[in-house]
């Protein structure tokens, strides 16, 4: 039988169902990846040519034992006090050469932020989560001090400046300006966090 009025239209009513099916598939399989973390530089394997002599008072020694207890400069301390302790140490300004520091100028603590070194040691049995928590507190101490200086100089926190600087969507001329600011703050409180080789104390 000849058709009148052309071919019949295909019903599009089930299109929504098909789209829903696909939608649900993607909803279920999506994992929005979280690739962020704590950046660290490992020390190069070759030892430096000249032996650098560092004064005892310029090193803030943090030790983590296998049950997760903390020893900071030979005192057993609580994790929640670590950040304040580290900040006191970095900000101490023992030789009074640091104009922006607000520390107590204790002669037995660090000379200035440029010389202050935090050394982190851990046991082979230490749990990774404890280690990360301690690392986080120490990086936090640096960030807090840098934020303070950044607020004073540029009226914006340092972490925000740095995030904008690292963001690939920022314009290049803004980036150049930010780079200068970021480097200036980094120079005020250089991050000197040494990761010595793990000791085994059995």
């Amino acid at each position, binding site marked *: 039988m000849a058709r009148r009025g052309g071919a019949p239209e295909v019903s599009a009513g089930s299109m929504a169902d098909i789209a829903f099916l696909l*939608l649900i598939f*993607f909803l279920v399989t999506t994992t929005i990846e979280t*690739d*962020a*973390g704590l950046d*660290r530089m490992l020390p190069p394997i070759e030892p430096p040519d000249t032996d650098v002599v560092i004064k005892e008072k310029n090193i803030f020694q943090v030790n983590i034992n296998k049950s997760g207890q903390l020893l900071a400069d030979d005192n057993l301390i609580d994790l929640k006090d670590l950040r304040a302790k580290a900040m006191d140490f970095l900000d101490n300004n023992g030789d009074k050469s640091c104009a922006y520091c607000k520390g107590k100028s204790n002669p037995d603590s660090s000379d200035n932020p440029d010389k202050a070194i935090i050394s982190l040691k851990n046991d082979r049995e*230490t*749990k990774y989560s404890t280690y990360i928590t301690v690392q986080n*507190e120490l990086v936090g101490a640096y960030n807090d001090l840098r934020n303070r200086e950044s607020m004073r100089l540029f009226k914006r926190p340092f972490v925000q400046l740095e995030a904008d600087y690292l963001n690939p969507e920022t314009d290049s001329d803004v980036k150049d300006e930010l780079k200068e600011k970021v480097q200036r703050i980094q120079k005020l409180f250089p991050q000197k966090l040494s*990761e010595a080789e793990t000791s085994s104390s059995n």
Partner: protein
Amino acid sequence: MSKFKFKKATKTPEVSTASLPDIVFMLLFFFMTVTVMKEDTLKVVNELPNATEIKKLEKKDRVITIYIGKPVDKFQETQGEQAKIQMEDSFVNLSDLGARVLEAVNEKPEHLRAFIAISLKVDKKASMGLIADVKEELRIVNALKINYTTYEGDTSKNLE
């Protein structure tokens, strides 16, 4: 006879569903574009710890990922229960790790090789001994830029 008929009680008009497919398609395209397919099949338990002071990793093409953790149940018979290292899709022995990392670096285009970062995805229950060994291997092959990849969140949950 009046010209105007009184309307009978009318039903409320139905909402047109003709634009429903469009809305669903919009959502569908959103999810299709943001979806990242997993590159590696995890063979180790990999629950990352939390941290607050984190920095985003740079572009994906300059990151090499190393997973560390206990093998998942399926592999515990053959691999044991001790924490293991996984790169790409296979288990790697500590002694081969340096070579594998160098191989992975050499697969990257030359202009990116200077910027390569190693992302360490370590299960929070792993102990530092193995990680110290891994760090030592990485120092030997001169891959010094590392990132302890974590979730963003309260660190107090790490200690449970």
